[in-house]
């Protein structure tokens, strides 16, 4: 390897403050990066998409020469979408001195973990959508998707325009993500003078939602705007069908998960959700999508976003000519990056400058833009 580049890499790591690590990093000359999400537990399939995206990105970046002449080394952290576990994953990343974190996935994990990364000065790119994440003045956190307030607005617009005169309920699962999204939808619906007949919360992880269903039925609800994850949506839809209630659910980005198809069974066609425009459709992603499909992996949901997060880091490091926190963060705030999800620019808070959400509808095994 090139001696000068090696020296730069060593300088960068040294400036991160770990002398012991610097020796080992110089020895195998690699940059440690982390990907964190729910690799096991209820939301494991979301974490799985996330991990696969990061792995492929690291593979591709390394194949084209790595970052600043060094290979990337990926470590995987499993937070089970549990805030406590997220903090311990974050601590372990900090101890191993990762240069960058791709994650976390759940808003409720990203919130506590980002404090740890902030203290340790580690840059982070997340897909969590809770608005609070970038509202706390943390410099090193960036969001490569939109926010729940934007997502909620798109959902509310769609409901107001397409479900006029139908009875609408807004339900959430009390998580940072679900509650945040449902609050936004309810707020935006109120602003559009669209009446909501029922605003409730449920407990995620339960199996019996018959109480909620009969409440919906008694109120004659036809449209359910839901903030939460896909398991509960599947159960609610199945139980509604069993109770003879015809319900259409409009939810957020987590409903892209194709496990919803198996779990909801024939009810899947009643699910609409908001998600950023499908990156699989764009030309920028064609090559990567083909790589994934050649391995029999469908790059759905967050996979390409996780891939893009790694790309953003690699490009920023290249532009900064360093993996140092301050240099990278400066690049991330000012630069513009070409990724598989299109061009990415971050604003001062770390949010995307031009996020977009589209309403999708499930049809059998696939989802597509709603007409």
């Amino acid at each position: 390897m090139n001696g000068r580049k090696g020296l730069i890499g060593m300088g960068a790591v040294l400036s991160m403050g770990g002398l012991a690590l610097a020796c080992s990093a110089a020895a195998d000359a690699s940059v440690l990066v982390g990907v964190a999400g729910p690799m096991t537990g209820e939301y494991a399939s979301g974490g799985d998409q996330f991990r696969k995206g990061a792995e492929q990105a690291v593979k591709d970046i390394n194949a084209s020469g790595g970052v600043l002449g060094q290979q990337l080394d990926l470590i995987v952290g499993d937070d089970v979408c549990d805030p406590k576990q997220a903090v311990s994953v974050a601590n372990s990343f900090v101890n191993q001195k990762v240069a960058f974190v791709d994650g976390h996935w759940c808003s409720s994990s990203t919130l506590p973990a980002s404090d740890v990364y902030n203290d340790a000065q580690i840059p982070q790119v997340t897909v969590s959508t809770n608005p609070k994440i970038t509202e706390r003045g943390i410099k090193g956190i960036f969001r490569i998707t939109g926010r729940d307030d934007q997502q909620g607005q798109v959902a509310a617009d769609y409901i107001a325009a397409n479900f006029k005169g139908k009875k609408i309920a807004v339900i959430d699962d009390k998580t940072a993500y679900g509650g945040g999204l449902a609050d936004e939808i309810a707020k935006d619906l109120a602003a559009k003078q669209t009446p909501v007949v029922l605003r409730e919360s449920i407990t995620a992880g339960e199996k019996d939602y018959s109480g909620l269903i009969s409440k919906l039925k008694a109120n004659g609800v036809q449209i359910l705007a839901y903030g939460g994850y896909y398991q509960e949506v599947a159960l609610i839809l199945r139980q509604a069908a069993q109770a003879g209630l015809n319900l259409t659910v409009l939810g957020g980005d987590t409903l892209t998960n194709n496990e919803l198809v198996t779990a909801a069974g024939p009810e899947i066609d009643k699910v609409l959700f908001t998600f950023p425009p499908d990156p699989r459709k764009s030309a920028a992603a064609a090559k990567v999508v083909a790589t994934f499909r050649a391995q029999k992996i469908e790059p759905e949901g967050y996979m390409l976003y996780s891939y893009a997060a790694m790309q953003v880091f690699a490009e920023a490091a290249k532009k900064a000519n360093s993996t140092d926190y301050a240099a990278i963060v400066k690049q991330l705030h000012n630069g513009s990056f070409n990724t598989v999800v299109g061009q990415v620019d971050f604003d001062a808070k770390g949010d995307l400058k031009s996020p977009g959400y589209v309403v999708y509808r499930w049809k059998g095994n696939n989802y597509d833009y709603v007409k």
Partner: protein
Amino acid sequence: MSQALQQLINGLTLGAIYGLIAIGYTMVYGIIGMINFAHGDIYMVSAFIAVTCFTLLASGGISSVVASIAITLIVSIVLTSVFGWTVERVGYRPLRGSNRLAPLISSIGISIFLQNMVQLTQGARVKSIPPLVTGGVNLFAGEGLHGGPYVSYVQLLIVIVTIVLMSGFTLFINKTPFGRQQRACEQDQRMMQFLGYNVDRIIALTFMIGAALAAVAGVMVTIYYGVIDFSIGFQAGIKAFTAAVLGGIGSIPGAMLGGLIIGLIEAFWAAYLSPEYKDVATFVILIIVLMFRPSGLLGRPEVEKV
């Protein structure tokens, strides 16, 4: 009114399932004075057996719903009983006569083991089956747009199976020689040993019967909700355990009554107040009952075990 009736039906269904699991807790407590914390996970294992069985039967071309439910019930009961027996053999028998806390800890260990075993072998993702029994009957048909109370055939199935099973089980405990031995064992194990009965066998069978009832609950839940994962045992276990305590732990009719009450509280609370706090309601009622009847609704006052 129509909503109240609807919730009564929903609550009965839920209560039936809790009751079936609660019997396992109460029987084991009755005979060895110990809570079997692995019981909720035994129920979870039975649900996985049911999903596997339903899937195999469907791919094997058996389209009759009745046949596939019957086969699954039998397979699940048999296999789950084996799990129940293993729990007793591995977690309890070697520790009988040791410190009272030892088997308690070992049952927690088995619970963790079972959960992780299923998570590793079956994956952490949810498993589901397509709706097996669909449709239902609308009581008082033609009651306007939203319809009157609606009983789905699955709910009918669950309630009927539970009633049949519980009456059969009550007869079994009260009228058969094994039932008599089981009750005698609850009263005095050492005396039973002196009289030449194999106490180990009776205790093992008690665990197996508890597991078999949990297996029925597991199959019913699989048909009812259609979606399961490796962590369902915990919550169901806690609810059923609460049901057993509410009814009076050690008392079999108490477990059934406790299950029913908890199912109904949850259903009505979720419908008329907030679904958010239904667990709070359940446990507040448990505390109130225990304040006035420390041994539960139908429980006998604590007898000192030998």
